[in-house]
């Protein structure tokens, strides 16, 4: 059977018989219908669910990480605050200490000055007392001495005339001037 004969007999392999076209179409349409309408949507749904399950897990992990991060930041903030507080307290204590020292120093100064002033007053009082005592003694001694030299008591007279006092004042003035 030559190819030409076959073609003439309508048995050419490139000429499709109608019934086979119909059956071919039918067979494919059945497959396509089942897959497109039922089975592939089925599996797509499950694949989507699986993707979501996996992504859900990832999301959970991400949430946990975010929480850990926020806790860490919170902790860091608290730590910084505590440090700040400590620094502030230290500063305050330092300031208080400094104020206390200054206060005490001022107090000491004041007390010292008081003591010094009291000392000076005491000294002045003593000096005055000594001076007046000395003046009396010196006057008495001088009049005693002069009485002995003159042979009579000048004491009352001297005391009345205030000679000695005047003399001593003069001496003092000279001493002051000569200084």
């Amino acid at each position, binding site marked *: 059977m030559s190819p030409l004969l076959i073609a003439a007999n309508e*048995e050419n392999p490139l000429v499709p018989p109608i019934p086979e076209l119909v059956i071919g179409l039918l067979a494919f349409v059945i497959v396509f219908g089942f897959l497109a309408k039922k089975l592939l949507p089925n599996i797509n749904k499950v694949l989507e669910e699986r993707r979501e399950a996996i992504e859900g897990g990832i999301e959970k992990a991400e949430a946990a990480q975010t929480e850990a991060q926020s806790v860490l930041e919170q902790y860091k903030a608290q730590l910084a605050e505590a440090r700040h507080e400590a620094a502030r307290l230290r500063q305050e204590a330092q300031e208080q200490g400094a104020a206390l020292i200054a206060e005490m120093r001022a107090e000491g100064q004041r007390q010292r000055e008081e003591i010094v002033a009291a000392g000076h007053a005491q000294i002045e009082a003593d000096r005055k007392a000594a001076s007046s005592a000395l003046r009396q003694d010196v006057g008495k001694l001088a009049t005693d001495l002069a009485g002995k030299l003159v042979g009579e008591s000048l004491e009352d007279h001297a005391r009345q005339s205030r000679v000695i006092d005047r003399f001593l004042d003069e001496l003092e003035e000279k001493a002051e001037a000569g200084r």
Partner: protein
Amino acid sequence: MSADPTQVLAFETDCHLFDGCGFAEVSPGLHSFLFQPLWGDGDSNLYFNKTMLLALLGSVIVIGFFWAAFRRPQVVPGKLQMVAEAGYDFIRRGVVYETIGKKEGEKYVPLVVSLFFFVWMMNLWSIVPIAQFPVTGIISYPLVLALIVYVVWVSLTFKRQGFVGFWKNVTGYDKSLGAVLPLSMTIELFSNLLIRPFTHAVRLFANMFAGHTLLLLFTIASWYMLNSWGIAYAGVSFVMVIVMTAFELFIQALQAYVFVLLTCTYIQGALAEHH
């Protein structure tokens, strides 16, 4: 030649080498692709033959496989579901997303997946014992699939590009071609609009046709030469049967893949702005 070679298998004859019987008596040919109706009258258009039976049976097998795998799919898949998912994912990701892209391609995934597994099953019949005939070795089946793709492609191109855009798309209109433009447009028009469905179908058909012929040739030759000194030749021929069967297994999957890859390329071409 015997009266009706389509009804006589080579193994049912006593035709052997050195027996004065020529190989032409049993050799495979176009008659190997013709089947007498199992039901109905071959002269009318109302009949049912082996290829139709295999086509419908193939549909049932493809649906059965996916029904078993995807009827009640689990988030944590079983073995069958995992295998089916791998196949589905291979076509979805490896073919559709790769050529058309995820956003545009999603709509065509069911078509392409159905096409691939349908074509593969039809090809696989070639080496399934007893059936042993590639349904896609009959032009009707690849042609009908190619025509479906053609209709999808043409309507999509019209929808996306409009009337003028459609003609620009199928003629590969490009001003920069200058004087060559009329020639290139004519060639492109023929190549895209007229020859494309034909080549799309024939590429699959011819591969399966040739593969089946080769398998038949070596199988029948093994039987034919199984006589006296011919046994040595028969052995070589039989080794070739095994080698070619393995090769066919590969070609069947490859041709199914090529068929859907071309489908995606055509769809992508329809979606493309301008080329």
